[in-house]
């Protein structure tokens, strides 16, 4: 074991899978010569050359569509979207093409590709560069969605995503990039399965289900709530949004009797609403108090710092929601 950054973990997963599988290639803006705007693909051009690390013009619709085509032809493209918000300029290729291909061809074709990149708020990038997209993607069957919160999970989930036979969206929160964590030595081949949650903090009073950067915020909130109020949170890291590990969530709720689902995408019709609804459908008898979700208020993230802080479902808002539920 050693400590690495989140960025390094992703970079290693890309490199090792490219070494292992000739079919894997990278495509995106400024990923080769520059090494990625956030340096995630650093040094990969040197190692694998322009045949497998492809710098594109700013043509998301075109290169996303070409990745779909290359995947249909048997390769394993990994597409970087510089900001996840830009999925909207190539949405047809993702949702109408990649996600539906296997189904509408009666299983004759499949699209084994990964779309990865950073998302989320916290750095004042404003309305068009701060969205969190997991809830929208969850509306489309045929594409899987994962969002790790630690370097270990990032590497393990990315390897799983690359080896998956389906399109997988791999979400990296921009606030996670320089966080550090334990990683097995480079030669250890491990994966984290898609669709499996993990308890990141055991507790007895309330289950907080989340993923990605809000998980770190939730862990901090949990320590403060423990110290200040004696409230003991159990924190379930969903890790995958599609498929959703409801079994993991309900197993935890069986211990605590309370559920709060937290995410940075919209609260309204978001993945938290889905988790709450499924809890009521599948095991309402586990709940001692009404289950809740906490997401983004109906607005896009503004540049102005106090306004952005007001809206993000981070520590302050998480603590307030928990306190209300524990009243």
């Amino acid at each position, binding site marked *: 074991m050693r400590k690495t950054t989140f960025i390094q973990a992703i970079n290693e997963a890309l490199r090792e899978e490219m070494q292992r599988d000739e079919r894997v290639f990278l495509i995106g803006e400024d990923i080769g010569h520059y090494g990625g705007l956030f340096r995630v693909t650093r040094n990969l051009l040197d190692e694998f050359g322009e045949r497998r690390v492809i710098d594109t013009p700013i*043509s998301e619709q075109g290169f996303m569509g070409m990745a779909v085509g290359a995947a249909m032809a048997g390769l394993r493209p990994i597409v970087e979207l510089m900001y996840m918000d830009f999925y909207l300029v190539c949405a047809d290729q993702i949702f109408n093409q990649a996600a539906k291909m296997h189904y509408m061809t009666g299983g004759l074709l499949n699209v084994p590709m990964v779309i990865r990149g950073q998302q989320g708020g916290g750095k004042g990038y404003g309305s068009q560069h701060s969205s969190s997209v997991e809830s929208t993607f969850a509306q489309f069957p045929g594409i899987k969605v994962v969002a790790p919160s630690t370097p270990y999970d990032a590497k393990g989930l990315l390897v799983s995503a690359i080896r998956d036979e389906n399109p997988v969206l791999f979400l990296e929160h921009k606030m996670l990039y320089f966080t550090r964590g334990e990683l097995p030595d480079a030669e250890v081949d491990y994966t984290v399965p898609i669709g499996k949650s993990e308890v990141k903090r055991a507790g007895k009073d309330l289950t907080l289900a989340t993923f990605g950067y809000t998980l770190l915020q939730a862990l901090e909130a949990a320590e403060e709530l423990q110290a200040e109020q004696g409230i003991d949170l159990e924190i379930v890291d969903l890790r995958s949004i599609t498929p959703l590990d409801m079994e993991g969530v309900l197993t935890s709720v069986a211990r605590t009797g309370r559920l709060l689902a937290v995410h940075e995408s919209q609260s309204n019709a978001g993945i938290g609403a889905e988790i709450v609804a499924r809890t009521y459908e599948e095991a309402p008898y586990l709940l001692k108090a009404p289950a809740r979700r906490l997401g983004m208020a109906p607005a896009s993230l503004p540049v102005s710092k*106090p306004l952005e802080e007001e809206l993000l479902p981070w520590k302050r808002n998480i603590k307030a929601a928990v306190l209300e539920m524990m009243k």
Partner: protein
Amino acid sequence: MAEPSLKASVPSAKAAVAEATAVLATEQLLSMYRKMVLIRRVEESLLDLAGSGKIGGAMHTAIGHEGAAVGMAAALRPQDYLTCTYRGHHHSLARGMDPRRAICEVLGKAPGFAKGKGGSMHFLDPSLGLMGANGIVGAQVPHAAGMALAAKIRGDDRVAITFFGEGALYQGLMHETFNMAQKWKLPVIFYCENNRYSEMTPISRTSSVAEIHLFARAYGMESVQIDGNNVEVVYETVARAAARARAGEGPTFIEGVTYRLAGHMANDLETYRSAEEIDMQRSYEPLTQLQQTLLGRGVAADLLAQLRAEVEQEVQSAVEFALEAPWPDVAEAYTDVYKV
């Protein structure tokens, strides 16, 4: 990775603008000079503020691009529509945006024109015809064509101009827009500020066509490549394009060759180009060019120094104003989602 010098790739101003319109009066050139210095100093101050951690997010300056903005502002009417990219401080200031409110917006302060919600990438002031800078590459271009369509439907004589980088030409929606704008003879000017890099990528690495204004020719559109750092040439070219547009002759595509002297955005490490390359461009940059023109016309160097000192004071007081300005009330986080 270094590109050939800017001058080498730009045809002379004479070749670009076949029939030169009236020569600008020295008075007018002086006011353009003042504006250019103002833009430069506002942006340099913003870079300082970003360096001291006062600005979050992504801030893109147009240092070196001022010729396009100031030439355009002199050539168009105040009510003409304008859209542009995240690199849009210069267009807005050239059209008369108050520098104090501009800096407030970048800092996310309440007196910003968008209450600090939009920030550096979303400059606008509809009262000045500034209909919005955009964070999505290419997105503002059909908007301008739509404003031109609106003018045509209403039957008024407003024109629309849109600014974009050469990198935007590889977005499909650009080409859809060019075709319709030309087919419908819309009063729109497509102004490409070709600074030869899209983010960290030199254009030679991504474009199938070396002279990018030729893309427009595929749609039968009038197109021209000019020295975008020469404010007189920009003025003349935009004025001619606007006259064509108002006369119902349709769109013009202008490729104004320029060079971005600062990073793609604040805190850009600029590993993709050399210091020599940047230095080489300094003698062609718009402020240097205009200063030489003015001195050549016999304007006293002292007068220019005095203008610069005036601007300096204005910019310093704008920065102070913005630093002391209040933050927006947190209740603003929830407003403006729908118009009520």
